[in-house]
């Protein structure tokens, strides 16, 4: 499936909530969408385009905004597709995909605790990898690592 085909299939359902479909190596393409079209897009991808397998949900902190991306797989066409949506940093929330693909559950929990993207209507948004009550979101760019205190800090580069 080419990006153009994807766009042709998705545009009627989503309208302007679908932003672009761009080519992406090793996949059928990357679908950029507005976050209010999330649920419709997920349903269309699963039911009409037979992307029944959600492989991964991840989030990236681009400082000014955050990006949530989904990797889907279709057994019929044996190919991947990427979905990605930008959410503003001060209101980082998006509709959960776990109602459409149950496998999104844990991935979204991880994305929430790591990059602080809130997934609306998630059934079980608890800490997964960090302890309960952990206050930080480590994969934000503002979260810096440092050497343990008794070890002297060296500069890595000249």
């Amino acid at each position, binding site marked *: 499936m080419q990006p153009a085909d994807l766009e042709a299939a998705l545009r009627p359902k989503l309208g302007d909530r679908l932003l672009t479909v761009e080519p992406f190596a090793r996949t059928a393409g990357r679908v950029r969408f507005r976050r209010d079209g999330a649920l419709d897009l997920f349903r269309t991808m699963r039911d009409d385009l037979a992307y029944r397998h959600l492989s991964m949900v991840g989030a990236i902190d681009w400082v000014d905004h955050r990006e949530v991306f989904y990797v889907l797989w279709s057994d019929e066409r044996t190919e991947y597709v990427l979905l990605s949506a930008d959410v503003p940093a001060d209101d980082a929330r998006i509709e959960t995909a776990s109602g459409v693909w149950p496998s999104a559950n844990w991935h979204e929990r991880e994305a929430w605790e790591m990059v602080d993207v809130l997934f609306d209507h998630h059934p079980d948004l608890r800490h997964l990898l*960090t302890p309960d009550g952990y206050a930080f979101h480590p994969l934000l760019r503002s979260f810096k690592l440092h050497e343990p205190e008794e*070890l002297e800090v060296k500069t890595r580069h000249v």
Partner: protein
Amino acid sequence: MASEPAVPFVEIEALRAQQFVPAAKEALSAMIAERGQEKVVRPVFNWAGRNSLFPLHWGLACCAIEFAAAFGARWDAERFGVVPRSSPRQCDLMIVNGTVTWKVAHKLITLYEQMPEPKWVIAMGNCATGGGPFRTAYSVVPGVDKLVPVDVYIAGCPPRPEAMLDGILRLEDLIRERKE
């Protein structure tokens, strides 16, 4: 069919033992008088303690695989009487074989406290020693000696099974000279 000797062997042995026991007693009391009770009894228990170290059977990370390999056929740590037990109550040795995170830290301390005295801790691998490659990470305890007292550190990432056995032998040397 049953052709036992005329004098039961048991009786002969009992008579021999009669002669043996006072002699042994005399020798032992002479030793104790000469060297003090501590010097006689303690080496025996130290010998026992160092030759039957039961490590706690738990796997933390990469080193746990080498830990398991050391109990495999090629190295066979059981040769030294090292038998992993699953319950901390029956262990004398905690081999921290991998990265300790803050999430598991209090459980590690609980397990350590559940082990009866005398007990030892081996920090196996660099993660347990000082956090290893992950020591900068937000979730990693930079060295298990922050949580429990460590007797022997084994460097390596992960240490070979031989290196682990070497660490256990070093611990045995420690126990040999133990004065409590």
